[in-house]
């Protein structure tokens, strides 16, 4: 049962692969020889994740052929992660018995699935998941969920490992551990990685595949023009000149960037300038016996930009949700936000009107069928979907944002058919659209390619400079620093669970 000896080469021969009706990869010619390890890269929406998924047998082969796909594939991706979460939520039988269900525990998610229980156990220990084994999978933080996905892929004896953005959302320690583990199995398991960040490319990668967007002719008899991508070229890592060119290609000049104006018609209640925007006093969050945040004091003054960091599971998102009012325990803590002492009769909509917010959790929750333009407009109303009649002015501003993101042509297309990265860009625009007094960006660059990451970072800098918005930025990547941000808060993971 030695996988490396059984692995034949994988060959795509003019393969056109469709994914539901929403995306088509056309005419892919691609060969993975035994011993090669690939990175797939390219622009957002070019089909990187689709190509990776095709290796796992996802999608419908329209023409051409694909040979040599192994049966046992380990796949980690945001799409697969979101699917697993959605499946867990669907399992939630809360309403059947009028009880609130607890969900599948982490132990079951891992050990009922992995064929190599010994390795799984080892990884659980290494990734620090041991104390979480009995917790419901859907109660985990984004990073913790990711770790569970990784263990399921690694410890199931894969003949091919497909890792779509495996390093995003992992803290520094976990990242090092994962990279070491991958390096150790490189002789035995061929790997294909989807990476948006060039600087994260592991040393063992031998080849890079670059994908580009494709606009196929509409299919005859169908009004739908589906989005598409194609494999533009491949680069051997030994070929230094080609490799450098590719790096350049992924960069974007951001000098003439202009942030669209706010809506002059929407006036917020005035804030008392002598008071801080946010003041948490001895903030504490616990689930049962588990302590997540322990007596945190934190004051955010107006115009004081902050970066919040800390390892996975250190409670970053929990602390943010105390501020946004999304965490139920905000009512048991001493929290002062935008002139309100929480729990004194204010509604969450009175709080949210001062905040623009983007996070991975928001992206999971944004599951309504609505157009791209409406997603941006929903930022004026702090809603998921639009339930108010938007003004012409708001529509104009939304269109300016779409133009800025290069998505004007897709204004009326459904949001849920976009790629993960494109969805993320729109949600960032949604958070910024009203020029909120407090802009909370919880790992905003997850799932973005190099070009769009530069774009978003530049936007954040412009917004910081603008003076009306205070930015609260959460990120693991130390190189994604915003020069205007000079206040840092680092949360520690609490060991006593």
């Amino acid at each position: 049962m030695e996988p490396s000896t059984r692995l034949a080469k994988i060959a795509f021969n003019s393969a056109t692969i469709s994914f539901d009706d929403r995306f088509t990869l056309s005419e892919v010619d691609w060969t993975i020889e035994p011993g090669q390890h690939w990175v797939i890269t390219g622009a957002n929406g070019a089909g990187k994740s689709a190509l990776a998924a095709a290796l796992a047998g996802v999608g419908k082969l329209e023409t051409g052929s694909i040979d040599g796909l192994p049966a046992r594939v380990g796949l980690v991706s945001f799409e697969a992660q979101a699917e697993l979460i959605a499946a867990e939520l669907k399992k939630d039988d809360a309403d059947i018995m009028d009880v609130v269900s607890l969900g599948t525990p982490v132990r079951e998610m891992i050990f009922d699935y992995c064929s190599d229980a010994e390795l799984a156990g080892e990884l659980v220990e290494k990734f620090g998941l041991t104390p979480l084994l009995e917790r419901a999978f859907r109660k985990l933080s984004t990073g913790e969920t990711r770790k569970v996905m990784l263990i399921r892929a690694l410890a199931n004896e894969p003949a091919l490992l497909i890792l779509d953005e495996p390093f995003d959302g992992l803290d520094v320690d976990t990242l090092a551990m994962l990279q070491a583990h991958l390096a150790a199995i490189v002789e035995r398991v061929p790997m294909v990685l989807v990476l948006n960040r060039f600087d994260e490319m592991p040393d063992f990668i031998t080849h890079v595949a670059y994908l580009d967007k494709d606009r196929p002719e509409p299919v005859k008899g169908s009004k739908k023009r589906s989005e598409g991508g194609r494999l533009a070229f491949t680069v051997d890592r030994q070929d230094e000149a080609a490799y450098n060119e590719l790096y350049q290609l992924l960069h974007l000049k951001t000098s003439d960037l202009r942030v669209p104006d706010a809506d002059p018609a929407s006036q917020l209640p005035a804030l008392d300038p002598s008071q801080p925007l946010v003041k948490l006093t001895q903030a504490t969050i616990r689930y049962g016996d588990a302590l997540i945040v322990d007596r945190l004091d934190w004051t955010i003054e107006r115009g004081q930009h902050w970066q919040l960091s800390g390892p996975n599971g250190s409670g970053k998102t929990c602390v943010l949700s105390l501020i946004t009012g999304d965490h139920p325990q905000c009512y048991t803590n001493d929290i002062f936000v935008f002139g309100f002492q929480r729990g004194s009769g204010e509604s969450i909509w009175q709080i949210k009107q001062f905040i623009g917010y983007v996070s991975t959790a928001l992206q999971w929750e944004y599951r309504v069928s609505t157009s791209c333009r409406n997603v941006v407009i929903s930022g004026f109303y702090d809603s998921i979907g639009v339930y108010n009649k938007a003004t012409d002015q708001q529509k104009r501003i939304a269109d300016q944002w779409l133009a800025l993101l290069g998505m004007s042509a897709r204004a009326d297309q459904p949001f849920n058919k976009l790629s993960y990265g494109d969805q993320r860009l729109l949600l960032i625009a949604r958070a910024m659209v009203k020029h909120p007094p407090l802009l909370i960006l919880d790992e905003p660059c997850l799932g973005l390619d190099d070009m769009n990451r530069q774009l978003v970072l530049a936007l954040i800098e412009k917004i910081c400079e603008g003076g009306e918005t205070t930015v609260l930025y959460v990120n693991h990547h130390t190189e994604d620093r915003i020069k205007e941000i000079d206040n840092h808060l680092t949360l520690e993971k609490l060991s006593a669970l």
Partner: protein
Amino acid sequence: MANYFNTLTLREQLEQLAKCRFMYSSEFDEGVEALKGKKMVVIGCGAQGLNQGLNLRDSGLDVAYALRPDAIEQKRQSWKNATENGFTVGTYEELIPTADVVLNLTPDKQHTSVVNAVMPLMKEGACLSYSHGFNIVEEGMKIRDDLTVIMVAPKCPGSEVRAEYVRGFGVPTLIAVHEANDPKGEGLALAKAYAVGTGGHKAGVLMSSFIAEVKSDLMGEQTILCGMLQTGSILCFDKMIEEGIDPGYASKLIQYGWENITEALKYGGVTNMLDRLSNPAKIKAFDLAEELKEIMRPLYNKHQDDIMSGHFSHTMMEDWANDDVNLHKWRDETAETNFEKTPAGDMAISEQEYFDNGILMVAMVKAGVELAFETMTAAGIIAESAYYESLHETPLIANTIARKKLYEMNATISDTAEYGCYLYNHACVPLLADFMKGIKSDVIGKGLDVDDNGVDNARLIDVNEALRAHPVEAVGAVLRGHMADMKKIV
């Protein structure tokens, strides 16, 4: 306790049954003001109790949970639900005397014992809120004269009530004031503020009466909503097996078929549901439905009569007193039906195929919706109520069957609905025995076997006119229009 409805004069009964109107957005301009600073204590921390409480608190209201001492001592799930979400939890003795509004969100069956325990503890002039009127109307619970009694009933499962609120929207909600208990005339203001607190005003609010809610709710759930779907599932499945259809296919066609065909109902009423069929299939479905209506009308009348007279609730309460022996027996029998025991196959069935191969199912939904509507309105229930409790809710119930078949449906609905559903099913299956003998796989399982789709013009015109002329279509068009105004702009 005497049946409250039966103590009223005919004039009063008719007046109460005729209450149901869709409220305007402007009627909610005062927001949650009427409840601001008041203490709201929820009894019951299941899916409705917890999620309504979360919404009310996020709307700026003061919410706490009163639980039974054993639930607190043993740290039961209800206790965990409330405490982990940062709510104050206490015993009835601790919290009820402080409450301005007590929200009774326990199951029907517990209402009498809960209200008997709570009422003596409530302070003078406080408000007691229900989400279903059975206890007041059918059991005849007499509430202290100084207390205001209202009903606020979100028309969706608890998780949905929360999810829509968090999105910035809400779910359609029914409100009512028990006129015998509105000493200060503030019942309506409180009910409206409560509906705003849960987000319901954004999705549309119906103002009804306790009586209209109970009598139409019972009728709808027993007949078209649950009973007809259960009987239809069992009969259609057995017929397909008899006709040699693959059991996996038959199981799937039914499990997901109700959901698919009633989705068309949701968008455009019975007319649109039949318009999804080819012309010959539409005429076939129409004829089958006419036949079904004639056979089933006496049964629908009997259900409505028993509901109105109180006979239904009387016999059901006897079963409650007898440890639910009948309910449990019938529940077990349902689990043993062939449909329930045959898993859905993994073949693909397109949305259109559910219509084409499920002509009999379409006919059953049409017959059930129209009969329930006709029977309710003939009994004095206003058309708006009758519409909501027949056509409007059918897709919601069909959705539960799609999740996990009849088990899921019967687990999701109240015990009261489940009991009535079985009563209907036991009468309806034998009633349709002769009719089913004439049924072949062309109307259930395979689709019509015709050379072309030609039909007679005059006949098609007659059928189309008859479909569109039914009164459920007229009121439905108006109400769906209101809802669409408030619905998400998509």
